[in-house]
């Protein structure tokens, strides 16, 4: 199993939220293979951005590409879902990394 963290940031409110879940290695590799390739920068403003981290790998997915497959992953990571380790973290404190 591999520990995965999903962080949603952005939105007009600029609030970040994180969720965790455990995945089989094979499923994680499958998710990595369907990550959208780099495209023209979206013209969307104030939409969410999802970052999915596992070990030293990070997938960055704009909300406009957040399809049913990714939604399913997030549903599994939400608190209260059976069979998953689900923790609803408080927002990160971005002031923890100020410029020197």
């Amino acid at each position, binding site marked *: 199993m591999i520990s995965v963290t999903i*962080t949603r*940031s*952005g*939105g*007009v*409110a*600029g*609030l*970040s939220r994180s969720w965790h879940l455990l995945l089989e290695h094979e499923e994680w590799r499958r998710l990595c293979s369907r990550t959208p390739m780099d495209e023209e*920068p*979206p*013209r*969307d*403003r*104030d*939409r*969410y*951005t999802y*970052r999915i981290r596992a070990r030293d790998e990070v997938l960055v997915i704009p909300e*406009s590409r957040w399809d049913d497959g990714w939604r399913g992953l997030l549903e599994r990571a939400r608190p209260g879902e059976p069979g998953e380790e689900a923790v609803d973290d*408080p*927002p*990160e*404190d*971005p*002031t923890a*990394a*100020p*410029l020197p």
Partner: protein
Amino acid sequence: MRCSIVPPYLLARIVAAAEERAMPAAARAARRALAETPMVHAARRREILPFAAEDFGSPRSPRRTISDAESTETVPGVPVRREGETASGDPAVDEAYEGLGATFALFDEAYDRSSIDGRGLPLDATVHYGEEYDNAFWNGERMVFGDGDGEVFRRFTISLSVIGHELTHGVTQHTANLAYSGQSGALNESLSDVFGVLVEQHRRGQNADEASWLVGEGLFTEAVHGRALRSMAAPGTAYDDPLLGQDPQPAHMDQYVQTDEDDGGVHINSGIPNRAFALAAVAVGGRAWEGVGAVWYAALTSGELVPDSDFASFAGATVRAASRRWGSAAVEREAVVDAWRTVGIEPGRA
């Protein structure tokens, strides 16, 4: 298609009554059920069509079309109110319609700009996007508003400054087109906050010293310990809540936040130029949209900015715009320079 035991006319009455009695959860549920009624869909589509090219008249008045996504994440949705039509009775639809009009009025009356592109572009918005969707956004062509979850956020059309914020993203896209990352992205966000609050001040006829300088006031439910999404006058103080945490906006360049989230902290570091604007506007006094607001608009449209302009570059453009407006020795120009220096930014030279 889900079947409903409640007939459409009764669902419509539930929507109206629940909204009147401030029962948004009930209204949402009834609205969803109503939206899934095929007969209602067909009737609404026959009655209201989007604007066609021949409908366009004078470019100095807005052409608004508000559509209803009916709790789906598909845009544009079903058109439900367009220019000149009477209020629909749906608060989200009517707030969006009025908010687009108020934003059009600010840019037209204060800056002689006709709509987003300066050429009378029709203003399109979609409401009731998604299910309990906690956001509003600009998709490059239209404004899109969620209903909120009812626990943290109310519907996003409830805040005029948020409507002005979203539409200003369109103005920036058609002018300096600031890249949405790092400092240029934070400037992009700040400009939306600046003109968002100016839409409110213009509508209310407020002077700078009477204004709240809050972005998104009224958006949080009573359960949240917070006044708004952001405070331009005092970044970092808008909310402090057990669930949301503390407002992370810095008020000075010394606290600039380096982060990979939020496109490099565009909604966080916007606090720095936001505060510079509020400081300058209060120092100059009077109606902010006429003085410092006009200077910020002149900087945005000056042609001096590039997509990756940083804070210092934009500050320099505002100082030059202030010189053109008031003269190089004017106290108002000095107020602009002082405001930038107070937040730790030395205005750049051309």
